[in-house]
Structure formats: structure tokens, C-alpha cells
């Protein structure tokens, strides 16, 4: 038993009957008790992975181990998992109590009604839905239904909880509240949780770690902040971060990086951040908007197209090589639309990517 590999996915591949290769080659592991977010744009394969873990889909190749034992051939009901669907799938004809009791009163290992109710009540207390026991799901708000679905997923005391976009049916404010609740709930129960989402903010705020998928492959499997500070590749850098990262086309010639109107000497870069050799050619220079700031001796001279207020900060929008770019400045910044500005780059915070998206700096 290895608690660091409580859930282990090895070289997973899934090709659907119509020939679509949803998952190409995916391997990752999850620590016992962790809350891991599977993040990615729609169609990236994250829900497919969740369904394979749940046993609702069979993998085309690869292996899945729960607590060191392969479960690929195990029926879903014997995998000790709880599953929360995107639309909750609560039974509309049953009361909240009956819904939560349902997993305990069906199948081979069904419990007596009294015992089932006792366990159900325990989890209903944990999810704070005791008051709703006699209500039907149709009378509940989205947030309340969510809690019922989670309570129902937990009553069989599964070892792993799988959640498929559980917050996408809720409004923005409720989503913030519920995601915190989900985190504190699964942490207090101590259950290992895999949480599928397409919302990076959600993933960053609740995940112990995040696995970012795109195109059926893992792009990065890391702690939340590293997606921001050390993106693996061009896709990650552009997927994570709000406002989105700025990208500039540059050409490396000898010991210089040349853009249309600025030049950076390679010696000015942090040599320890180079990932590999950098032959001459085309590259993308990416920089987060907070690391491209107005300064007297800035290397980019441009004009502010527009200013957007986002709470504590302002986004200065400008055009570079016909592409819109952004600079993040303080709320108090006096700069307005039409102002001429000089922008400087924090060279120890920029990223360089090959045209294929591979990171070199």
C-alpha cells in the first residue's frame, strides 16, 4: 500500500466506437485523502477519464489501480466509489431522506431500514440538509440538491468520490460558496476526491493538485500555483491565468531575441531558467499581464487602446503586431485611453515557447 498512489492510472487509452480517440496516453496518481481537479476545455477527455474510473466506460488500453489493486475488471458497484452527476440525478419521486437512503436499501448488502436511516441522517447532518428530510428534490434550490447528491454519494462510505462538474448548474455566487463547502466537507470526511471542471478558478481554489488535460493528453500534473508560475507548455500558459497571457512573436538570431519593435539580449535572461538548447528561429515570448508594466525605460513603445477595470486592478489594452495585448496595472494608475506609454518586461518571469508549444525558457 502506497498512500501516494492511492489511485493510479497507467497508460490509459480510450477510443470510442466511432473511432474518436478521447484519451491517448494518460498516467497519473492521486494521494490518499487528496482533492484533485481534472481540468481542461470541453472535449479534452476529462469526463471520459472520470467515467472510466467509475467503471461506466471500459478503457481501450491501460490499467487503473485503487489502493494497489487493478479495478479495470471490477464492476462499478464493487469499486467503492461515490459519483455525483452534473445534473445530480436525484430521484424526483423520493424525499430527500429516501434519496440519501437509497444506496443503503438496494442490492445485496442492503441494510435494515432503521440502520439505513441512521447512516443517512449522519451524512445529512454533515451536509446540513437535515431540515429538508421530507422535501422532494423538485422543491429544493440548486445548492440544496447538490448537497443531497453529495450526501447520497457518501452514505455507502466509498473510498473515492468522483464529481463531474458538480457546480456548473449553480449561479456564480452560489458556486463560490458551494465549492468551499465541498472542499471542507471532503476534507472532514477524509475521502479521496476527483473533481472534474472546466473552470480554472474553481480548480485553483479547491484542488490540492490539478491535472490539466487537452486533446486526450495530460498537459501538466502539478500544484495549482505552478500552472501559473511554471507552465509546462504554450497550451498551459494560455489556458491558465486571467486576464490571459500576452504572446509576442520573436525570432532568435545569434544572441538576441528580436521582435518587430524591441530586442532582448539573451545574456539579460536568467540563465538557470533555460530548459534546453535554443537554436536560431521563430519563438513565442509569453508574459503574464502583471509582468509587463509601464516604466520610463520600457522597451515597448505603444498607445493605450482601452482601460478595463477589474476590481483592484486595471487592464491596459494595447496592440502589438496587430494582436491585442494586456498589461495589468494598479487601480490608481492615471493612464487613460490614448496615452503613449513605454512598457517593460520582467525578464525573469517571461516564457519562451517553440512554434510546437514546447517551453524552452
Amino acid at each position, binding site marked *: 500500500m502506497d498512500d501516494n498512489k492511492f489511485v493510479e492510472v497507467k497508460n490509459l487509452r480510450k477510443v470510442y466506437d466511432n473511432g474518436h480517440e478521447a484519451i491517448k496516453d494518460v498516467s497519473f496518481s492521486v494521494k490518499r485523502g487528496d482533492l484533485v481537479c481534472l481540468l481542461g476545455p470541453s472535449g479534452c477527455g476529462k469526463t471520459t477519464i472520470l467515467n472510466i474510473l*467509475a*467503471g*461506466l466506460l471500459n478503457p481501450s488500453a491501460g490499467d487503473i489501480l485503487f489502493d494497489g489493486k487493478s479495478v479495470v475488471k471490477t464492476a*462499478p*458497484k*464493487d469499486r467503492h*466509489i461515490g*459519483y455525483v*452527476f452534473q*445534473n445530480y*440525478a436525484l*430521484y*424526483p*419521486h*423520493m424525499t430527500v431522506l429516501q434519496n440519501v437512503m*437509497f*444506496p443503503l436499501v*438496494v*442490492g*445485496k*448488502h442492503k441494510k435494515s431500514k432503521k440502520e439505513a436511516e441512521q447512516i443517512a441522517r449522519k451524512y445529512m447532518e454533515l451536509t446540513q440538509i437535515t431540515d429538508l428530510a421530507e422535501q422532494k428534490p423538485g422543491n429544493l434550490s440548486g445548492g440544496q440538491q447538490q448537497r443531497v447528491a453529495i450526501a447520497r454519494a457518501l452514505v*455507502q462510505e466509498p473510498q473515492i468520490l468522483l464529481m463531474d462538474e458538480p457546480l456548473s448548474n449553480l449561479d456564480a455566487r452560489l458556486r463560490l460558496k458551494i465549492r468551499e463547502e465541498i472542499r471542507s466537507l471532503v476534507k472532514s470526511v477524509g475521502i479521496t476526491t476527483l473533481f472534474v471542471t472546466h473552470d480554472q478558478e474553481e480548480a485553483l481554489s479547491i484542488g490540492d493538485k490539478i491535472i490539466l488535460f487537452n486533446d486526450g493528453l495530460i498537459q501538466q500534473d502539478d500544484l495549482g500555483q505552478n500552472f501559473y508560475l511554471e507552465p509546462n507548455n504554450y497550451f498551459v500558459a494560455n489556458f491558465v491565468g486571467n486576464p490571459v497571457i500576452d504572446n509576442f512573436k520573436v525570432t532568435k538570431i545569434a544572441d538576441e531575441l528580436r521582435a518587430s519593435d524591441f530586442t532582448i539580449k539573451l545574456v539579460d535572461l536568467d540563465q538557470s531558467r533555460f530548459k534546453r538548447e535554443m537554436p536560431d528561429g521563430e519563438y513565442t515570448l509569453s508574459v503574464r499581464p502583471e509582468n509587463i508594466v509601464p516604466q520610463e525605460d520600457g522597451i515597448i513603445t505603444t498607445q493605450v487602446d482601452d482601460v478595463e477595470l477589474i476590481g483592484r486592478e486595471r487592464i491596459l489594452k494595447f496592440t502589438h503586431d496587430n494582436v491585442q495585448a494586456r498589461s495589468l496595472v494598479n487601480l490608481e494608475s492615471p493612464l487613460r485611453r490614448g496615452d503613449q506609454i513605454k512598457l517593460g518586461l520582467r525578464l525573469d518571469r517571461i516564457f519562451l515557447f517553440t512554434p510546437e508549444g514546447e517551453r524552452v525558457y
Partner: protein
Amino acid sequence: MKTNQKKAWLFLAPTIIFVTLFSIYPILRAFGMSLQKGSLIDLSWAGFSNYQYLFHDPEFWLAIKNTILYAVISVPVGLAISIMLAWIIFSKVKHKAFFETTFFMPYVTSTIAIGIVFRYIFNGDYGMLNFVLRSLHLPAPNWIDDPAMSLTTIIIFGIWTSLAFNIVILMGALRNIDPNFYTIAEMYGASSKDKFWRITMPELVPTIAFLLTMNVIGAFKIYTSVYALFNGQAGVGNSATTAVFYIYNKFQIVGTPGVAMVATVILFLIILLATFLQRKMMKKIGEN
């Protein structure tokens, strides 16, 4: 507000006129005629004499008994078979559309035509049904010509014809059940029995309530299938007479519209009562 109300009445007028003319007026007229005697063109006040006659007419009691027996047996049995078949088609069969169409065929075929085919199938000497029964060494009764069998024959026929409509409606209801309900139940280890009784049946309650009401009303009004099966008669020696058959007979053949209208009023009250009781019952089931 006032003009709106005027407009509302205007828009409702066509429906109100037609309902009044063809539903409410006939009911009132039937009740009026039930207190009259004589032929249609020469009606006179009769008080409750028609009622007295009817209550002492054994043929009427046979008709009511047959109708109630028919409704009480054919509706639940037909509905149970429909649910079973719909569930099998829905959950086990691959080419659903084909079977659905097949089962729906009887609904679009005229009852008279089906009745004629069934006369052959039910025929005591050369019928297909008895051929099968005989080859299985089972008793082969005379379905059509034996007065003791005629009600049974009609019930079997009624069950068979009710399947079409019921199955199509039930299939629609089954399709409306969120498939995730079953996925999640399976994940919790629910057996097929659990799934059927704890998910499918409760989800079907509103549909079953609707079908039950429609079927019971239809069953009380049974006429065409009797007519078709027994060649325009109510079975040998009127053994399979039904309420509507009795009404028709008294109205058109015997020429006592007053008596026919008494039977109409009573049948109306029976259907009203049955529908009312059913609604109460289904409401109770729905609540649990």
C-alpha cells in the same frame, strides 16, 4: 380589464358552444328523456316509471354486470401486460422502433376489421387458437358460440386491443426517465428488481394514472368489439350484452328511448364515480 374579459369570452366561445351543444346538452337531454315515455316523435311525461322498469329488467343487470366485470378484469390485466411488454421492449430489445410500430398497428386498424380476424382465430372448430390449444393438449372451448365463454372472449379481445395505445404511451414515459437514474442505481449495486420497483414504477405513476382513467372510461363504453366478435349480436342469447349494447338496443331496436336514457344516465354516473375514485386512489399512490 373589462375589455379583456370580453375578449376572453370571445376566444372561449367556440369551445364553450361546442361543448355545450354536444356534451352538456346531450347529458341534460338524456336525463330529461329518462323521465319520458313513448317514441322519439311522441314523448310524454312518465315520471320514474322508466327507472322502475329498468331496475326490474334482468337484461339490464346482466349488461351492467358484464360491463363491470369486463372493466375490472380487462383494464388491470391489460395495463399490467402493457407495462411488462413496454419495459421488455424498452430495456431488452434492440430494434425498439420496429416493435413499437408493430404493437401500435392494432390502434390504427379498425376494431371491426380486427374483430372479423379474431372471429376466425377464436372459431371453435377451425380457429387458430384452438389448434394451438389442442396441440398442447389443453381444453379447447367454443369461444364464440358458447354463451358461458362469450364474456371471457371479449375480455381477451379487449386486453389485446388495449395493448397498442398503452404500450406507445408507456414507451414515451420510459424514454423520459433520466438514464442517469439507472446508472447511479447500478453503481450502488441495485438489482434489476430494485431498479424496476424503486425507479421505473414510481416514475410511471402519472402515466399509469392517465392510462387507467382512459382505459376504464373506454371499458365502460365497450360496444364495437362485442358487435364485431359476435357478428352484430351481443353473443349467443345476449350472453355478452354490455351497457352500451343495452342502450342501443332499447333505443334503436325496441324503440323505448326513455328506458335507453335511464341506462345512459346510470352508466354516466358509474363512469363518473369510477373516475373520481381512481383519481383519489392515484393521488394517494403518488403521494407515497
